[in-house]
């Protein structure tokens, strides 16, 4: 380990992949924090303290430090037949606070990323309206605008865990979630221009991608809090998030948040689109299926420590960090347990608390170095309590794929490594 920055980076990546695979034992030498180059350590003075760094605009669009290369979306290649209809996961184990950086927001496409020229993009409103309308992107930017922070979670988040613990890493088990600030226009203002007829009850938003993604959305929800957004975290939507225009459906499953939004039809009954019949319906043990299961129930997960983010210091003062969210509004509180649910204690929610947004929680404690069984349990402002996975299985069986918001267990071993387990 020569210790040039590049090599340090490689060793960290190597460390990470072995931690992810959960195979190699964690030895002190592979701890990135201990792989420091003595030449850069006091009393020596490192190069960066002596010589000039890069000038301004070296990178006209800035990127994270080269030492953060492991903070990336990852996919599970065997999961789907093609990457154009697939999913990548947010590295939530590496992030903090409640805002997800644009470049690592998870992706789910059904026909790849449409590359849309905003000059050629239109939003059409038709169906049960007084006057069918066509809007340019310029038009949309003349409506009054709002800024709102919301989480977006795929209904299939944690879907692979229904039959038992499968994947080692919250990136894969809970990483189909992100939370950004949207800038956009309340959908009701746009509908107002077309004049919705009195017998209208449903909308069908549709994408301009090669899946022409479509869903049925109750008019009531659209008028309540839906937005048509063109910015995320202050900059234009990323192509993979629907540039130049996406629907924002706060608290409801991600599939409804139509990307590359090109059309909204107004109607008096649901369309029963493929994504609300074949998919995004929840198959129960008795063979019946739940449909229109839109709300994302309260959920939480400890993001660190977790399988991809082991404890690298020995015993002593330790920070537990995690995320909680509810499609019904605010998170009231989060409790965590160190002993697999024998005793629970209140975590500390820190930072912004906004309805239908991620909440960040912490729990600080003095770890004695003995194994831990970590869990977190969220309760939202409506009194919804995050259930255990077994409570969910008792009611729903194991075939439903979607809406698995069960409590996650991490087994922290004496060496600080963490594995995804299920407990009694």
């Amino acid at each position, binding site marked *: 380990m020569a210790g040039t920055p590049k090599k340090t980076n490689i060793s960290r990546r190597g460390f990470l992949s072995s931690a992810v695979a959960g195979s190699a034992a964690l030895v002190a030498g592979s701890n990135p924090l201990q792989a420091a180059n003595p030449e850069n350590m006091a009393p020596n003075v490192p190069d960066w303290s002596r010589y000039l760094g890069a000038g301004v605009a070296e990178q006209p669009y800035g990127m994270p430090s080269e030492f953060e290369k492991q903070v990336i979306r990852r996919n599970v290649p065997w999961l789907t037949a093609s990457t154009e209809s697939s999913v990548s996961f947010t590295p939530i184990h590496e992030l903090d606070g409640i805002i997800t950086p644009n470049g690592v927001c998870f992706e789910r496409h059904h026909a790849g990323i449409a590359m849309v020229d905003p000059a050629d993009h239109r939003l059409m409103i038709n169906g049960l309206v007084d006057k069918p309308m066509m809007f340019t992107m310029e038009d949309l930017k003349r409506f009054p605008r709002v800024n709102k922070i919301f989480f977006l979670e795929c209904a299939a988040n944690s879907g692979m865990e229904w039959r038992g*613990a499968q994947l080692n890493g919250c990136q894969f088990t809970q990483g189909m979630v992100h939370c950004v600030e949207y800038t956009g226009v309340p959908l009701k203002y746009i509908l107002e221009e077309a004049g919705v007829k009195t017998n209208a009850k449903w909308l069908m938003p549709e994408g301009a991608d090669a899946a022409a993604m479509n869903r049925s959305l109750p008019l009531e929800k659209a008028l309540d809090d839906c937005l048509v957004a063109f910015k995320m975290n202050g900059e234009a939507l990323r192509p993979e998030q629907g540039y130049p225009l996406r629907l924002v459906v706060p608290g409801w499953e991600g599939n409804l948040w139509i990307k590359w939004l090109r059309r909204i039809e107004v109607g008096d009954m649901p369309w029963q689109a493929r994504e609300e019949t074949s998919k995004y319906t929840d198959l129960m*043990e008795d063979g019946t299926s739940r449909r229109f299961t839109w709300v994302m129930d309260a959920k939480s997960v400890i993001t660190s420590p977790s399988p991809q983010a082991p404890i690298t210091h020995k015993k002593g003062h330790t920070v537990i960090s995690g995320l909680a969210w509810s499609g019904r509004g605010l998170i009231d509180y989060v409790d965590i347990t160190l002993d697999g649910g024998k005793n629970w204690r209140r975590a500390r929610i820190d930072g912004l608390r906004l309805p239908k947004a991620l909440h960040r929680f912490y729990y600080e404690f003095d770890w004695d170095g003995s194994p831990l069984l970590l869990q977190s349990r969220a309760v939202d402002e409506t009194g919804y309590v995050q259930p255990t996975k077994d409570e969910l299985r008792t009611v729903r069986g194991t075939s439903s794929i979607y809406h698995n918001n069960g409590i996650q267990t991490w087994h922290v071993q004496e060496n600080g490594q963490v594995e995804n387990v299920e407990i009694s």
Partner: protein
Amino acid sequence: MLKFLKPALIALGLFAVIATPVVAGKLGIGREATPAEIKGWDIDVRPDGQGLPEGKGTVETGEELFQEKCAACHGEFAEGVDRWPVLAGGQDTLDSDRPVKTVGSYWPYLSTAYDYIFRAMPFGDAQSLSPDEVYALLAYILNMNDLVDDDFELSKSNFLTVRLPNEKNFIDDPRPDTPILAQKKPCMENCKTTVEITGRARIVDVTPDGEKGSN
């Protein structure tokens, strides 16, 4: 339509009151969409038949088309190739351990298949099929699911007579379906005497390698 604004403002609480600008009536933004524009984009089909174009197609024509345009991914008999979706079979598996969800075993409405196949298939060449082709492909898929005879012809006029067997098995969302606070306060102390590890992700051994995932 100002009536929409008020309940929303009240329901959303303080944040919305501060953040939501008040708009009174139409702003005169945008233009009317032309009938030609609407015709080109209005591609959806509903269970009541709204949106179905004129056209027809037989199982036999459908079979030929399917082999040419669909079988590479969905299999000669719509049975699916590798991990590409299975479109036929799976009857009586929904309450089993390994449910097979297909157009025949799971989908509640045939209109969904019309709507979806035209808008999204063949994968990578969407919105390329003619109405006659979609009717024919649907006839073939129905036939592969043992729902229509070999000499069946599907058309706009008989479309609504075809009902899929699983329609009655869809129910509306009954959540919350686990105890809420008012029903059961979560336990805080001495909640269990013993705790055993009953399953481990690494035994199942399906964890993707972080480096591979970044390729």
